[in-house]
Each structure stands twice: as structure tokens, then as C-alpha cells.
């Protein structure tokens, strides 16, 4: 299983700080699509992604036990 950490509006939309998912072998983009559908998460296309606290591109492949984080950039200031 993989832990998917959610921040900002994604956290509010999912109603949870993280979700668990079998993501091994999938790409970051796959996971985005999957959770967008399952949890009705929005604006994932402009959300930054990290694997194990390191920045990750959309085509990166997830390994067993990896922790993924989705961090939506915000505008306010």
C-alpha cells in the first residue's frame, strides 16, 4: 500500500489528511487521475507532487512503500 498525503483544498475535499492506495507501478499522473475520480478532487493538474519528500514529475513511477504528497500551490498573499 502507499500513503497519499493531501494538503490544502485537496485535504478538505477528501475529508482526510491522507488516503491509502495500492499505487505500486503506477505513475504520479495515474494516481492523480485515480483519486480525482474516487474522491472528487479538483485542480490536480496544477498540483505539485512529491515522492518521499522529493519533488516528482507526472511520469515518475511509484515504488512499494513510497509516500506520495500532493501540494496545491496557492495564490493568496
Amino acid at each position, binding site marked *: 500500500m502507499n500513503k497519499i*498525503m493531501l*494538503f*490544502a*483544498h485537496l*485535504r478538505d475535499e477528501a475529508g482526510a*489528511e491522507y488516503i491509502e492506495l495500492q499505487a505500486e507501478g503506477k505513475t504520479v499522473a495515474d494516481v492523480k487521475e485515480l483519486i480525482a475520480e474516487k474522491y472528487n478532487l*479538483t*485542480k490536480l493538474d*496544477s498540483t*505539485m507532487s*512529491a515522492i518521499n*519528500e*522529493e*519533488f516528482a514529475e507526472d511520469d515518475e513511477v511509484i515504488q512499494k512503500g513510497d509516500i506520495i*504528497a500532493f*501540494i*496545491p*500551490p*496557492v*495564490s*493568496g*498573499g
Partner: protein
Amino acid sequence: MSDRYSRQTLFAPIGFEGQRMISQKHVLLIGAGALGSGNAEVLARAGVGKLTIIDRDYVEESNLQRQQLYTEQDVIEKLPKAAAAKKRLLEINHELNIKAVIGDATPEVIEDLCREVDLILDCTDNFETRMLINDASQKHGVPWIYGACVSSYGMSLTIIPGKTPCLNCLLKKIPLQGMTCDTGGIIGPAVQMVIAHQSAEALKILVEDWEHIRQTFVSFDLWNNQYTNIKISKAKDEGCLSCGTTRTYPYLQSENRTKTAVLCGRDTVQIRPPHDTVISLETLSKQLKSLGYEIKGNPYLLSIEMAEQRMVLFQDGRALIHGTKDITHAKSVYQRILG
């Protein structure tokens, strides 16, 4: 005032030499809202040599909850934020050299200033200006510090040309509808937290302590007790048009900027985003309604009633701001909602 900086020179990584460097540096602050006023105060108290502050808005009642340089009197006088900030900063530190620029942070204004500043602090409320700062920073070799917050959530990133990835490496394109304080609300502590991170990095840059620069994208949620550092060195993209091997500085080009036009004979400004886009009117409508805005709409457009203006927003991001002929003000209204 010889004792003034004693507690700061006591701090070994600054010391007397660092204090001398701080006093000779020029910082450009873009935006004098919550982050702008807070960062300006920290830097003014720290004794920075010169501060240039750009802002296009005036002080409003709803600003007082979190924008730390302003008072009720500034609201009554409808003072421009840059001017109100300057007034208060000089009461704090009369030795400071402060330049208040009341207006829009256009490519021309920013590029001009890049020739004389040592650091740009991003305190804006929209990504268009941030991407513009990012390009100008790379073109002129000036470090800048991204900061943003909404609700109890915030983030920051330090960008040093030639050493770190740039914001365009990380985001690739301008995020549409990034959450703003006008759509998600904001609490004062989240503002303070971003200011703490931005101003700490600013001091490191001013004393040229490059090895202590934070190498991560930091984000936090104070209400939910989250704090995360994402390593970003891998994000550096040699194909990046802002900082890669072949650079076009796309966000300095006018075709990549929001277009505005006053409509003849009508008290209306038209605003067009630079690229084709599809806004989810349904989602936005729900969001704005829950915030108390009066919204009418159909599948093609939303009509949003505001205090002094009415905004009609089309699905492709185009908008008409009724009730003003002031382009800068209209853009400000638009970006407060759409980020």
C-alpha cells in the same frame, strides 16, 4: 542609534559585518498586503538599506484583520497601501530609505528595478505576477522568495538564479484558480508563518550566507499541524524557458499576459486571460455563494455582485468588470477571485 541592532549583531551568522551588509542592500517588495506589510516591517526593523514597495490597492476595512502596518485611520483616508506602509515604516525607523510605488507591477517596472535591487520578495496575490518576477529574476540574476497563504495553509520557496530550480521548473504553467484569501479566507497566524520563512531567507541572502539557504519547498497547515519540506534539487529543468539552456523568458512577453481594455462609453473594463482556458463555472459559483456573494448565472457565464463592482465571468476566463474605468483596479478585482 548605536544600540539599535545590538541583539542582531549578537547573532553570530549576522554579526557586525552582516549588519553592515544589510544596511547597504536594496530589497524590492512586490505587493503590500498581508505578506508585504509583514515582511516590510521585519526588514525595516532589521535595518535594511533601501526598500522599494509596489502596490496597486488602497487600504480597506477587510485588510485590518491581518495586514500589520495599517490602522483604522488608513481605511478612513483610503490611503494607497504603499503610501500607508511607508508612513508607518518611517515611524519605526527614520533612517530607512523607502520608495513607495503606487501602481501595477508591470514587466517594465520590475525589469527596471531589477538593475538596482539585491533581492525581490514576492508578496503578490496572483501567479501571473509571480511568473513575471520569476523571469525577471532569471534574466537579471536577482534572487527572489516565493510566499503565499490561504486559510491556515501556506508555503514558501527561495529561488537563487544559477543555483536552484526556478518556479517555472516546478509549476510548468500558471496554475489556474489558485486559492486566494478572497475565496478561502485566511487567518493571521498563517500570514506570520510565511513571513517568518520569507524574512529569514531574506536575511541570509542579504548577508550572503548562501550555504544556509533552505533547499526545500516548505508548506504547512497551522490549524491541522502539518509541516513539510520537499527537496527540489531534482526539479531543475534544462529545458525550462525561464532558467534552462535556451531561454525566452515567456512571462515577460506581452502575449503571455492578461489583456485589459476600457470599453468605450461604458463604465466597464474587459479582462482576457493570455491563453485559452476552461473555468468550471459550477464549482466557482458554489464556492462564491458559500462565501456570501450574490451570484446569477447560466452555463455560459456567472454574474458576481461585489461591493462596488459587478463582474461577469465567461467560461473561457474572459470577464467584464462593471462599475469602474480603472484598469489596474479591475485587474486587482479579477485576480483576487481567480488568483
